[in-house]
């Protein structure tokens, strides 16, 4: 599997679907495109034919506004027909701006309100252990999202319960909506903070697919007793030069020649 090609697919599909909606979250997807590709095509234990398989790995997109990048991946893996994506955001569609677990096979939990996902994952990881399953539970968080107090309540609980089957990935793309996270409400030092809460920490270039896979491989065996956090250094808007680290593109809409230019840039 050519993971770089799948990361490109995440980005181009995001651009395509955004045009259906009239606007969307390009840059929050672009920063985690490699993370999604590495996880879904290289790491997660899934069976698209059995979305409810009890021993599947769980993935909760706590930064739910990046769902537009997840939908094409789940279709590509066979959870549903890709043509369903063409209903994106239209009245009655299963596919809105945030993922809906009630409607979309492969989505393990609905999200959209930032700060909830890690608590969900603590509950899932705890339940997995109770049921004797060796599945892992993965959570994707934004760096701005780390300002939510609930994230740290969950971090404390995960260490307290010794949930070595829990892995948090922070998409440290440096921006929230209003500007740089460092200026608005500093999240760093992210590793030190998680470590102080009792987590094992890893830091990786979140756009380097080999490094991501190597980090996943280096995680302790599924039965460990310390939760794991991977801080992925990324660039919000990665892949489109004029969007990279630009606060103007948290939400946007490409029209006319810009659409074609961006598609060309992404597929070059």
């Amino acid at each position, binding site marked *: 599997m050519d993971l770089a090609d799948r990361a490109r697919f995440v980005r181009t599909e995001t651009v395509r679907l955004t045009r259906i*909606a009239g606007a969307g979250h390009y840059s929050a997807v672009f920063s985690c495109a490699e993370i999604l590709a590495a996880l879904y095509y290289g790491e997660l234990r899934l069976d698209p034919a059995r979305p409810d398989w009890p021993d599947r790995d769980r993935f909760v997109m706590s930064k739910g506004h990046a769902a537009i990048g997840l939908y094409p991946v789940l279709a590509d893996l066979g959870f549903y027909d890709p043509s369903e994506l063409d209903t994106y*955001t239209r009245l009655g569609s299963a596919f809105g701006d945030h993922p*809906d677990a009630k409607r979309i096979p492969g989505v393990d939990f609905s999200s959209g309100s930032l700060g909830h996902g890690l608590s969900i994952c603590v509950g899932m990881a705890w339940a997995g252990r109770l049921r004797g399953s060796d599945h892992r539970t993965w959570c994707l968080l934004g760096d701005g999202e780390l300002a939510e*107090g609930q994230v740290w309540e969950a971090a404390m609980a995960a260490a307290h319960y010794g949930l070595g089957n829990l892995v948090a990935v922070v998409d440290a793309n440096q921006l929230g909506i209003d500007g740089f996270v460092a200026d608005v409400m500093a999240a760093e030092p992210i590793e030190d903070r998680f470590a102080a809460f009792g987590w094992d920490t890893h830091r990786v270039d979140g756009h380097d697919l080999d490094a991501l896979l190597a980090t996943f491989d280096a995680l302790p065996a599924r039965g460990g007793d310390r939760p794991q956090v991977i801080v992925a250094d990324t660039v919000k808007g990665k892949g489109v030069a004029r969007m990279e680290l630009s606060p103007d593109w948290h*939400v946007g809409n490409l029209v006319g020649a810009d659409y074609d230019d961006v598609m060309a840039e992404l597929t070059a």
Partner: protein
Amino acid sequence: MTTTQDQTQDQAAIFNGTATFKDSRSVDGTDTRAMPAFVLGEELAELAEVDPRIVVLTADLGRSNRTTDFAARHPDRFVNAGIAEKNMITMAAGMAASGLVPFAATFGSFAALLCAEQIRTDCAYPDLPVRVVGHHSGMSMGFYGTSHHSLEDLAMMRSIADLTVVSATDANHLRALLRLSLDHPHAMYLRLGRGRDPEVYAEVPELVVGKALTLREGTDLTIVTTGSEVAPAMQAADDLAAAGVEARVVDMWTISPLDRDAVLAAARETGAVLTVEEANGTGGLGSAVAECLLDAGLAPRFRRHGVPDQHVPVGPPAALYAHYRLDGAGIAAVARELLEGN
């Protein structure tokens, strides 16, 4: 599938993204024109020139609610709390306890629902002048879905003692609310739409808390409405008038305290009351009006029209308003049903 302007949510305008390369931008023009009712930051900046107590907080949504306009003029009196709404509200309470008048703004879903206890225990109970601004309320976030909708905020907020609950109708009305709020003795929840509410008030209206505004006289029924539904209700009244039905329209911007006199007069003088709100019909404006009527022993023809007790489907706002008959045509149809006894 083609995307018409009407179907399009225009998220770029929602977040006030100024996204632009050459011609890419929010679909219907520039960000400011797309959000004419978002005078929040501008008006507060103006008021802050003469009132040193005013401070403004937001939670990583300054671009969305235009408090950036305030920050540009009064950077030292602006706090961006980051994505930490509960901390923001309680920090505001601390500021209010220290003599300031803080305005804390975020999406209604997070302001009212996420921070309900902070609002009750830290703002209303100590009776502090915190102004919680919940914008993009109701289902105006469209296909962002339930996490971003605040259809429950009216019910929740109006059940809190010593919390004044008001809705902004348009830009001028919001200006009036902000001015009035400066010396209001209690904590307030200000419910705003998504900044694109059409103009209802050509001038800044005179407001007194607890006194609704009657926008149109009528004898056949009264539409009691609030916030984002005032403009469509006026349109419905026009439609009804064309068919010979004269509807009174009451802008019940003051949800708590409610204008009981206006409600009772509506029942006595027009005999039929239709409440219209962009909120879950359970516990909101309609419930408040129903309580008021029954408490007074009145039983006019009555109908609560809001969003049914369900999570709304994905869809752009305009599609959702049509789906739930909360646009002008829908309201007129519901009014006719009420009068025809259906």
